[in-house]
């Protein structure tokens, strides 16, 4: 397992996920065998009634980094459960970076933590999730 495999997996995932990634403005920055970094900028169509970035989108960004980190080892999987803590609101035009790091990986499940930060390096959200491995390969 190496980062060149992770890069190939990342390229393939981005190719298939093109539509959802453009809907949410997600960009894959990097992937290693057990990490994934995904970024987005808060657009006007992503805010809630209070003018902050919608919590659903912050979750989606973290969930995306989570899924890619879990699948970086070329093992497909789905999210079973996740928990998100919102620490600071994200605002219009904020640049958000989600860093997903696999913490434990077994045969059928993997767990992963994600931190979402803004451009000032403040933590926007903390995510923790469990991934179920479907035994398929990505590439």
């Amino acid at each position, binding site marked *: 397992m190496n980062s060149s495999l992770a890069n190939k997996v990342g390229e393939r*995932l981005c190719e*298939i*996920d093109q*539509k*959802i990634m*453009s*809907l*949410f403005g997600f960009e894959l920055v990097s992937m290693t065998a057990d990490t994934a970094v995904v970024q987005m900028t808060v657009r*006007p*169509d*992503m*805010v*809630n*009634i*209070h003018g*902050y970035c*919608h*919590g*659903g*989108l912050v*979750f*989606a*960004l973290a*969930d*995306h980094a989570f*899924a890619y980190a879990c699948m970086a080892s070329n093992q*497909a999987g*789905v*999210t*079973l*459960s*996740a*928990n*998100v*803590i*919102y620490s600071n*609101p994200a605002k219009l035009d904020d640049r958000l970076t989600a860093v997903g790091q696999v913490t434990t990986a077994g045969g059928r499940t993997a767990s992963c933590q994600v931190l979402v930060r803004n451009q000032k390096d403040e933590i926007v959200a903390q995510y923790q999730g469990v991934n179920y491995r*479907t035994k398929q390969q*990505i590439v």
Partner: protein
Amino acid sequence: MDEKTKLAIEKVIKNDPFADLLNVTVEEVSVGYGRVSMTIEPEHQNFHGMTHGGVIFSLGDIAFAIAGNSRGKTAVALNVDISFLQATQVGDKLVGEAKEISLNGPIGLYEITVTNHHNQDLIAKSQAVLYRKKDSFIGD
């Protein structure tokens, strides 16, 4: 709550840009309760061909925002726990529902469900905690 206040709150609550991005329809707004729906489009899929977890979470979160803001006070989410129970596909109509379970001072607890409109199957279930600020978003 008088009718005028109720309508003013509803007007703000229904003006959610992110809900528009996902083509979410607001079905019901009441005190401590929200119900919304959306139909899954090809752009909502993940690489498995299933609905992206972030989309399902978002639908529930939009219902949660309605329930949480339904008293006209600004509510912010503190924590959400979600379990994904069943996959859904393009063309499925999903319903997001949020119910207030507890409200104690500024802290509220909500139960959120996402179900398949066609067969009532439970797709995802969440428990969420919010903090309600003192300021009203509709003025006095």
